[in-house]
């Protein structure tokens, strides 16, 4: 019988309550450690299709009669459209339709950031659409842009109300402290730059809208479109078989999809609306900049007595303020914490989730502050962190469902112990050092999520669920989970994903939630199919079902008998066994989070300010590891993105006009293969015994969280300089070195 329960769902730290239906007979977790398939390295099930250029991404779709859209975007950070005349545009060659702000509400006459969409045109080719837009006559009234986030807070230009948090009494905590440190940290605006830009193709067939879209959330896109267009959800079909990266920016349909849907409706043709790279870097979201004014107080033995922070987030014209205070509230056993978070509404492109939004930024501030505290206390930074360990989320006094951070620290000792050896490499202007930082982030996933497993007479299985694989390898993990449960080699399992009309509801691929949300549903579905197979075998071979199991492609009996699976399923001829599974609830009264520590080794040229990262050791605790090969790729990818965030990436704006100065990939500096340090990955691989039938948490985001702080702390170890602003450009490095030198001389730092 279906059992209805009320449970909690979390995505990136946002908790909501909801009803779910759970299976009556939950499946026990597998024993810890590598199994036959789960826990073994597996190559991507769709690796060859992607590598051979056979995989069809949204960008590759060419539907018959398809039109292409160009969007007129504001060149100004803040303006009012006084006149918008598209009559010449409408007459231009190839043009099939135009949209103004009177037609759809995602276009505006009062743009609030450079790139805000104002009008759109659909034509037979993209070139024609662009040329037609050149003929648009627009009179702009240019308004003064508000660009400084601190100024925005002073003026009360906020995205939403300030978020205040108090635990204990921070001021009393600081009074009790033997040592107090205080510093201001800044992080920059970072652009996602997935290689496939945001895009969709919309097609109407009668009253059904099909949206092919490069997305991280098929079902969320479906809901948002249905709601905005006032359609029944089942009339919206969303398809994404392959997508070229998202990193958090592709959780929603976006203005481009609503523009495409409307133009498709008006023209009766399929319509592609794809952002160019430059549009991508103006209008598709970003990791917002932050200013963090932080204080920490501790007893002489390192026990934290108080933490306080004022956080200003440069959210942009729309978007949300990321939870930058999260690490300060949750990472350590500090009884007194006081934070306030302001989301500044300014005339810059909107913020969007970007791989552990808020926690990347907040961890940089907090973990650098902790090292400054350790230096003042003359305490080993790793020891300081051990002494402030907590097994409880002190925000709501709930225990963590599993936390092996101390084990991560123990394994980090080996890398941390290389300090003397690394420092001894210093020669001439090149100073070497080692730094570390801890990681906390969500990643527990949650219900609802569903999967079906189909087993045919040939004894092969197909997993069906309408989730997406954004490049993290979740499709492969699902194949492994089903294969393990069915006792099949992974090659005998197909995984069909990517279409809301071809499978059940599936989780968002954000918040490191795909594996922990989908994996248990797939396992439950495979278990359901396996149970039916064993029931059939028991009847066919006159055995008790409890002595039978599925192993190595066979039905195996406890008394030694075995039958090839296809012999049992072959009885069915064209009939099929259908298993279904649902994701169960998260453990009540607990908090499910991921943990880890990274140890960075750097070299700094103190004359030129050049920083080189030589090595990063990453030790993370994400519960059971499904695919160690894919997991190591996730860790490496996160660290490399974090490296760009730390050293080279920054969206630059003109401080007067707000114009974005680096919209191209030669001007916006992402890491290349030549920038990559040695990366050592270790995963604790202990199942979270409280978390579903799988014990796995997500791994997409944890590895990017501590990288910047670990590098900054290594720089301090190498040079004595406190870098407090990202990216650590040569300018910032030289400023920090100068400040350190002046501090050593006992004179105040020049600004």
């Amino acid at each position, binding site marked *: 019988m279906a059992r209805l329960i009320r449970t909690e769902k979390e995505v990136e730290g946002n908790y909501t309550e909801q009803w779910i239906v759970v299976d009556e007979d939950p499946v026990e977790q597998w024993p810890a450690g590598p199994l036959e398939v789960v826990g073994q390295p597996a190559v991507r099930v769709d690796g060859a299709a992607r*590598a051979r250029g056979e995989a069809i991404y949204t*960008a590759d779709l060419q539907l018959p009669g398809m039109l292409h859209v160009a969007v007129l975007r504001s060149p100004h950070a803040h303006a009012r459209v006084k006149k918008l005349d598209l009559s010449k545009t409408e007459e231009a060659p190839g043009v099939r339709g135009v949209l103004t702000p009177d037609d759809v509400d995602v276009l505006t006459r009062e743009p609030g950031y450079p790139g805000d969409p104002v009008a759109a045109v659909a034509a037979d080719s993209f070139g024609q659409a662009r040329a037609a837009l050149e003929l648009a006559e627009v009179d702009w009234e240019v308004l003064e842009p508000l660009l400084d986030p601190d100024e925005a807070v002073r003026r009360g230009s906020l995205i939403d109300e300030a978020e205040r948090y108090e635990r204990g009494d921070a001021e009393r905590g600081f009074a009790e402290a033997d040592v107090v440190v205080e510093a201001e940290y800044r992080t920059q605006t970072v652009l996602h730059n997935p290689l496939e830009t945001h895009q969709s193709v919309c097609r109407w067939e009668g009253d059904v809208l099909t949206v092919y879209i490069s997305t991280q959330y098929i079902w969320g896109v479906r809901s948002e479109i249905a709601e905005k267009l006032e359609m029944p959800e089942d009339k919206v079909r969303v398809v994404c078989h392959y997508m070229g990266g998202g990193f958090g920016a592709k959780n929603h349909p976006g203005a481009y999809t609503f523009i495409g849907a409307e133009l498709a409706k008006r023209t009766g043709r399929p319509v592609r609306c794809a952002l160019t790279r430059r549009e991508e870097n103006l209008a598709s979201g970003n990791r917002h900049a932050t200013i963090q004014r932080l204080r920490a107080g501790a007893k002489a033995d390192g026990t934290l007595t108080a933490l306080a922070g004022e956080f200003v987030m440069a959210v942009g014209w729309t978007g949300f303020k990321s939870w930058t205070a999260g690490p300060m509230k949750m990472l350590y056993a500090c009884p007194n914490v006081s934070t306030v978070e302001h989301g500044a509404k300014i005339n810059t492109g909107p913020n969007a989730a970007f791989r552990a939004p808020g926690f990347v930024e907040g961890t940089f501030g907090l973990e650098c502050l902790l090292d400054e505290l350790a230096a003042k206390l003359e305490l080993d930074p790793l020891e300081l962190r051990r002494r402030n360990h907590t097994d409880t989320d002190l925000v709501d006094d709930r225990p963590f469902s599993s936390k092996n951070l101390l084990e991560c620290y123990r394994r980090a000792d080996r890398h941390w112990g290389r300090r003397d050896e690394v420092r001894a490499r210093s020669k001439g202007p090149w100073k070497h050092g080692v730094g570390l930082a801890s990681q906390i982030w969500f990643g527990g996933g949650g219900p609802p999520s569903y999967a079906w497993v189909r087993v045919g007479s040939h004894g092969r299985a197909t997993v069906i669920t309408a989730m997406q694989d954004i490049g993290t390898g979740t499709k492969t993990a699902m194949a492994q989970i089903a294969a393990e449960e069915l006792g099949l080699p992974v090659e005998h399992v197909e995984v069909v994903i990517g279409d809301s009309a071809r499978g059940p509801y599936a989780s968002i691929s954000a918040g490191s939630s795909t594996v922990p949300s989908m994996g248990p549903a797939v396992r439950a579905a495979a278990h359901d199919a396996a149970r039916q197979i064993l029931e059939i075998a028991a009847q066919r071979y006159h055995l008790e079902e409890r002595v039978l199991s599925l192993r190595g492609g066979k039905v195996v009996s406890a008394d030694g008998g075995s039958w090839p699976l296809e012999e049992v399923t072959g009885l069915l001829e064209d009939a099929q066994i259908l298993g279904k599974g649902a994701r169960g609830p998260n453990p009540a009264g607990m908090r499910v989070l991921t943990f880890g520590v990274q140890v960075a080794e750097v070299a700094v040229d103190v004359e030129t300010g050049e920083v080189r990262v030589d090595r990063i050791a990453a030790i993370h605790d994400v519960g059971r590891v499904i695919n160690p090969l894919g997991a190591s790729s996730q860790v*490496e990818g996160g660290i490399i993105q974090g490296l760009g965030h730390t050293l080279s990436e920054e969206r630059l704006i003109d401080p007067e006009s707000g114009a974005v100065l680096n919209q191209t990939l030669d001007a916006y500096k992402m*890491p290349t293969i030549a920038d990559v340090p040695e990366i050592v990955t270790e995963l604790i691989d202990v199942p979270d015994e409280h978390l579903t039938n799988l014990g796995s948490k997500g791994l997409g985001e944890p590895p990017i969280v501590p990288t910047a702080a670990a590098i900054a702390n290594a720089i301090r170890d190498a040079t004595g300089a406190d870098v407090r602003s990202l990216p650590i450009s040569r300018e910032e490095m030289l400023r920090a070195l100068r400040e350190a030198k002046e501090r050593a001389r006992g004179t105040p730092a020049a600004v």
Partner: protein
Amino acid sequence: MFELTVNGQSYALDVPVGRSLAAALRQDLGLTGTKVACGEGHCGACTVLLDGVPTLSCITLVHTVGDREVTTIEGLRDHALVEAFVRTDALQCGFCTPGQIVSASALVEANPSPSREEIRHAMSGNICRCGAYPKIEEAILTWRD
């Protein structure tokens, strides 16, 4: 009307002047394995070979190709590098991967046993935002295994 030789096959093309090689391959010939990620020659996703030389097809006009032989990922599907990329997990979202493999094929053609440094030099024009770089390096180091 002119002839274009792609992966050993000859095609008669009649496309407007100004069309990029990438657009001709993807839209006119349906060879969508070649990806366009920036459209202005900065990222390497659109890399193809012209007479064996890695070339950015998004900023190459199709009318300038002349009688040079074009090789795209579709012509390299049986190259050992493809298997090496899959085996070492040298791809995540896969959008840059065809361009990576095309670039790598030119490298190993000229230098079948490149060092790490040589790989890093030859491959630094191909951006991978997912950060598959360590495994791309491994794939190219071990491509003949």
